[in-house]
């Protein structure tokens, strides 16, 4: 008899395909049971939560969907809605430029927008180390360029201000071999002297030769979200170096420097920001000689910078304190002087530890810039609460305006916070 393969006992040559798990142990049903209805109280809580979400959406979605985007006044909105629930977003379409730019002359919106776009070009190489380092040159130029674009006036003022910085840098380079600290002081002093005594006369001289200028815009005309941005960015940029200096000063062995730093930090931290803003806006006018016009935005930037720097200093001091003593000793043992070891060993590590608190301060600083509405500067909230809501046409339209303002702040604050998390991951060398 010939045995054909068919007559052999059954031998499986391949594994069975896996069966789908029972519906109760996988898939959406399992997920629901595991996460939402694992027990009776859990199930009840889930139902309550679903109900709350549902009633929230039922209230909010028609409000957005029915929104009126084209109307001349709140009464017009109500007529168009005819009793239905809906937002009166027409106020946003009509007053959008005012929310963004305040009373900035409308023919120059392009200048302000350009400055805003260039800001990101300037920030990019600071934020992402992959980008070509040559872009840092633009970052260095940006403050002067942005000033010229936003405030206008003669181009020679920002150019000369830049020259002052260059002069300070040259002085620093010449003296850097002798003492890092002394060179910095000398450099700053040289820049200051140049700005105070030479910028004015040189500006008039150069303007007489070649008069390149944009239309001048007064500080009082700058407002809206733009001023929150100007105040936030410039105060932050100035507060970080000042905060580092204060943090180091507070740890110094030199009694005078230490005392100055401690008194400054404790004084500023003990005073509410709003008090400093009042001093900037009202009281300074009494102390300055009559007729002197010290720009209000500049006064406010200085006050916010001082305020943020004090907090920044404490955040960085936390970073410095977290470093093991061995790091300082390592620096000393290979023959680095104080400034070298700070620059090369201590600060890079201390700043990395402080990133979350520094970002925290940056975010709260950005949002605190809305406090300037109390000293009658028309930032985005001042613009809403003052001129827009008091116009006969839009008196009574709150939610739409404040939601728009909240959305603007959220976009930027969330962006900053996401960036800081990216930075922490990138710098997490010790946990790799």
């Amino acid at each position, binding site marked *: 008899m010939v045995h054909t393969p068919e007559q052999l006992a059954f031998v499986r040559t391949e594994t069975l395909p896996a069966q789908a798990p029972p519906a109760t142990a996988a898939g959406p049903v399992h997920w629901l049971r595991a996460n939402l209805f694992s027990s009776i109280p859990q199930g009840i809580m889930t139902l309550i939560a679903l109900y709350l979400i549902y009633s929230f959406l039922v209230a909010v979605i028609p409000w957005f969907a029915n929104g009126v985007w084209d109307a001349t*006044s*709140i*009464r017009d909105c*109500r007529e168009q809605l005819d009793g239905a629930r809906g937002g009166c977003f027409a106020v946003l379409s*009509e*007053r959008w430029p*005012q929310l963004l730019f*305040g*009373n900035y002359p*409308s023919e120059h919106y392009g200048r302000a927008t350009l400055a805003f776009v260039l800001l990101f070009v300037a920030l990019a190489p600071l934020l992402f180390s992959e980008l070509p380092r040559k872009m840092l040159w633009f970052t260095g130029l940006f403050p002067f360029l942005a000033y010229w674009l936003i405030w206008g006036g003669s181009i020679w003022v920002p150019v000369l201000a830049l020259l002052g910085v260059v002069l300070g840098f040259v002085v620093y380079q010449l003296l850097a071999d002798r003492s890092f600290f002394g060179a910095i002081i000398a450099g700053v002093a040289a820049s200051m002297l140049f700005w105070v005594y030479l910028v004015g006369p040189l500006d008039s001289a150069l303007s007489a030769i070649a008069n390149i200028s944009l239309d001048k815009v007064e500080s*009082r005309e700058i407002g809206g979200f733009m001023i929150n941005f100007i105040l936030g960015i410039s105060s932050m940029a100035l507060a970080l170096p000042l905060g580092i200096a204060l943090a180091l000063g507070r740890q110094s062995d030199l009694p005078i420097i230490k005392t100055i730093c401690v008194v400054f930090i404790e004084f500023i931290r003990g005073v509410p920001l709003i008090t400093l803003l*009042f001093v900037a*806006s*009202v*009281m300074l*006018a*009494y102390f300055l000689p*009559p007729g002197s016009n010290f720009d209000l935005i500049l006064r406010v930037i200085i006050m916010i910078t001082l305020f943020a720097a004090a907090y920044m200093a404490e955040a960085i001091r936390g970073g410095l304190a977290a470093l093991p003593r061995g790091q300082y000793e390592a620096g000393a043992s290979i023959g680095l002087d104080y400034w070298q070891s700070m620059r090369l060993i201590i600060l890079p590590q201390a700043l990395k530890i402080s990133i979350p608190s520094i970002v925290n301060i940056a975010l709260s600083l950005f949002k605190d810039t809305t406090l300037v509405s*109390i*000293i*009658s500067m*028309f930032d985005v909230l*001042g613009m809403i*609460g*003052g*001129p*827009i*809501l*008091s*116009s*006969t046409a839009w*008196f*009574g339209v*709150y939610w739409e305006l404040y939601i728009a303002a909240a959305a603007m702040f959220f976009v930027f604050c969330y962006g900053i916070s996401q960036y800081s998390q990216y930075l922490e991951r990138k710098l997490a060398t010790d946990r790799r």
Partner: protein
Amino acid sequence: MKNSLLLGAVAAAGLVAGAAGAGTLEDVKERGKLNCGISTGLVGFASQDANGEWQGFDVAVCQAVAAAVFGDPKAVEFTPVTNKVRFEVLNSGEIDMLSRNTTWTFSRDVDLKLDFLGVNYYDGQGFMVPTELGVSSAKELDGATVCIQQGTTTELNLADYFRVNNISYEPVPITTASEAQQQYLAGACDVYTTDASGLAATRAAFEDPSAHVILPEIISKEPLGPLVRHGDDEWGDVVRWSLNALIAAEELDITSANIDELAAGTDNPEINRLLGSEGTLGEMLGLSADWAASAIKANGNYGEIFEKYIGETTPIGLARGLNAQWTDGGLLYAPPFR
């Protein structure tokens, strides 16, 4: 404590500023612009249109003064100031005049060294409550929570009124009229109190105005008017008589429509003196002869300004009431131009 220190500083600085800035009119002329302090936003009295131009009943006073000085109502820099800093800003010399619905009181006039130059709106403090509360008189408000603006005379009036009537209340402090409206509608307070004009404007903006009543009691006198620093009477005269010119113009039936015709000369010597075709009133003020004509042309006479910004044809819908001419049973009474 902090307040009295601040007031002391203001008073001291006011003396200095008053002594230093003896010639505000010259300063203003030299600058080419009038610096006028206005509200940061009050419906009908000061607000911005979509182009960022300030307009309103208080703004019109600034424009009239600018027109009187320069012949150009646009020669004004508006400095919006909040309730809290308005007097400090005026005393520090940052602004030349304040036209910001400010109540004329003894202590502001005397202690804070300010000069009130007349009244452009006679107001009084009232109460608004939801109809469903069933309250018909302010005396029934015992234990109520009251929304009230800080740093204003209304705050003090309220305390006085409730003490006199021996009833208690709980204040909910707020800073702006729009915030007040929000808080009141959200039910954070049972009662909203402010000047009756403000109440009318707030109520007019409600979706259902009939759900709210303004109680009959007016508990205070609130004469609102423009003011300047103490110690510069020449400048004070310019502002005072610019305002008077607007009021007198209504009494004399001078309107923005017929002013060009009347300015050429009329049979009425008072009109002629006011509009400069007779006499030397402008010269006495240190201004041009057509100063009053320019001031009136800026936004029309007092009645026209009233109708344009807050009158019965506007959504705010205020009646003239006390603010009618004395000939119509109101309180407006401009001294003679002679």
